[in-house]
C-alpha cells in the first residue's frame, strides 16, 4: 500500500526544471498522458482542422504514433512535445486530404474553409475573428494558435513546428497584421 501512495510527500522535490536522479529516470505511461492531455490536444487539433470528429481522430492517431515511438516515453517532457508535434502534423494531413477531395469534387467552393459546425454556438465577434484566422496561410494560423491559445513560448513553438524562432516571429507578426486588416472594423478606431 505504501508503495502505491500517489504522492510520496516525504520526498518532495522542486517540481520541474531540475534534473532527476539519473539512475531511475522518471517514467511516463500513456494512459496517464492520454487522460491528462486528451481534451487539450483535441481542442488544439480542432482549432486547426475545424471539426471535432477529425480532431479526435488526429489525437487517437497521435497516441498510436506515441506507442510506436518508445524513445519519447523515457522523457515525459519529450512525450508531451512529441504528442503536440504529432497533432500538428496529422492536422496538416487532414487539411491536405480535404483539399484533394475537394479538387476531385469539382464543385465551386469558397476559398476559405467552410465554417465549422460548432460556430453556431459562438458570438458574432468571435465568429468574425475565427473566419479571419481560417483565412490565414497554414503556418501563420498554426503559430497564432500555439502562441495565443496554447500559450507556448517562441522557442517552444519553433520546436513544435520544426522551424526557427525567426520564422515564428515573422509568421506571428504577419498573421497578426493580416488579422488587424481583416478585423479593423470590429476593433474600431477609438481607444
Amino acid at each position, binding site marked *: 500500500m505504501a*508503495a*502505491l*501512495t*500517489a*504522492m*510520496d*510527500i516525504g*520526498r*518532495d522535490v522542486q*517540481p*520541474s526544471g531540475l534534473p532527476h536522479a539519473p539512475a*531511475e529516470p*522518471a*517514467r*511516463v*505511461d500513456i*494512459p*496517464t*498522458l*492520454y*487522460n*491528462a492531455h*486528451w*481534451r*487539450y490536444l*483535441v*481542442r*488544439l487539433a*480542432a*482549432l486547426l482542422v475545424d471539426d*471535432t470528429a477529425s*480532431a*479526435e481522430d488526429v489525437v487517437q492517431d497521435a*497516441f*498510436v504514433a506515441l*506507442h*510506436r515511438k518508445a524513445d519519447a516515453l523515457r522523457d*515525459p517532457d519529450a512525450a*508531451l512535445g512529441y504528442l503536440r508535434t504529432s497533432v500538428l502534423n496529422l492536422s496538416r494531413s487532414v487539411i491536405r486530404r480535404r483539399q484533394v477531395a475537394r479538387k476531385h469534387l469539382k464543385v465551386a467552393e469558397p476559398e476559405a474553409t467552410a465554417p465549422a459546425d*460548432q*460556430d453556431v454556438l*459562438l*458570438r458574432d*465577434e*468571435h465568429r468574425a*475573428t*475565427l473566419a479571419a*484566422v481560417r483565412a490565414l496561410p497554414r503556418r501563420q494560423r498554426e503559430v497564432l*494558435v500555439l*502562441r*495565443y491559445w496554447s*500559450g507556448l513560448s517562441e522557442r517552444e513553438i519553433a520546436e513544435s513546428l520544426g522551424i526557427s524562432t525567426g520564422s515564428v516571429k515573422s509568421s*506571428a*507578426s504577419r498573421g*497578426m497584421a493580416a*488579422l*488587424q486588416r481583416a*478585423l479593423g472594423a*470590429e*476593433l474600431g478606431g477609438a481607444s
Partner: protein
Amino acid sequence: MSDDPRLERMLRDALDASARASVGDERPVPPMRSGSAPVVAPRRSRWYLAAPLAAALLVVAVVAIVLGTTGGSAGNGHAVAGGGGTSPTQSVLPQAPPGAKPVHLSMQLSDNTQVGVGMPVIAYLSRPITDARAFEAATTVLVNGRAVHGSWYFERRSGLTGKPIEADFRLEHYWPAHATVSVSVRAKGLSAGPGLGFQNNLALTFRTGAAHVVTVSDKTHQMTVRDDGKVWAKFPVSLGAPQTPTMRGTKVIMEKGLSICMRGPGYDECGVKDTQRLTLSGEYLHSAPWNVFNIEHGIDSSNGCTNLAPKDAAKLYKFLEIGDVVRYPDASGSAMTMAEGYGDWDVSWSAWKTGGLYRTS
C-alpha cells in the same frame, strides 16, 4: 509580437471560445482506441489482449496511478500484473461497497485556463467523507508531463450549495511558471469511508503564466512586483488604518473587476476601479484616487484594502492575473487563513501534508 493588446485579447477569446465549443469542459474523456493499448507494457500484453476493452482500460488506469507516482521501477505494476483473474483495482485501493452513498466531485477551475503560480487546485465534494486516503492515492499530477509530489488539504466550506467540503491541492512551493499542469483523480468507485463512495473521476489541465509575486511592505509602504524573479515595478501604497488593519500573510488574487461597488461599515462606494480581490471578507488591490495623499505619504488609511494611485492600479490590473501571489509579510492585521480565500500558502507544508480535516496518509 503585436502592438495591439485588444486584437490579442480578441484572438485569445475567440480561440478559447472555439476550443470550448469543440470539446466542452464537461465531456468525459473517451476510451483510448483499442489498437493502441497493447503497446504500453509488452510484459503485460497478454492480459490486455485477453480481456475485454473495458477491463483493459481499468488496468491501464491502475497502471497509470502506479507508474505515474512511484517514480522508480522497483514496485511498478507488480501488484497489478500479479492480480490474475481478480479485478486488479481491488488489490490496490479500497473500493466502495455497492449501495454506498455517492460523493460527487467537481473542480473549480475550467480546463485550459491560465492562472498565476500561486493558484491552488480546488475540488469540491458533495458531502462530508470520513476517509480521504484513496482520493489522495488516486491522484496523479503532472507538470509538463512529469509527475510531481504534492498533497490535498481538506476544509469545510460554507456558502456553496451542494459543496460542503473543499479539497485544495498544492505543491510545497508555488507552481513552476510557464508550465502545463494536469491533475487526474481516478476516484470513481473508491471508498470515501464506510458506506461512502466517490461517484466520478476528476481531470483538469491548466497553464501557469509568468511567476508574478508581489510583496507589500507595511514598513516602507511600498509594493514590489516581481516578474519571473526580476523587479517589474515598485508602487507606493496605503494599507489598512490601525482600526481596520490589513491581514498578514500570503494571499492570492481571486477575482478581478474593472469597476465594482464596495460596502462596509461607514462606506458604500460604487465605481471603484481596477480591483483585484484577495480575501473573501473583501481586501482588494484597487485604485483610490481619493486617497492619493496618504498613498504618497506612507499613511495607512484604508478599510484593509491596498490602495494604489490610479495609474499604478491600472498598470497592475493589466499585469496580474488570477492566481498571482501577493505577500504581506509585515502587515499589522490578523494572520491570513484558508477560510479567508486562497490562504493555502499560509498553512505550513508539514501541516498541509497531514490533509487538514481528513488524513490523507
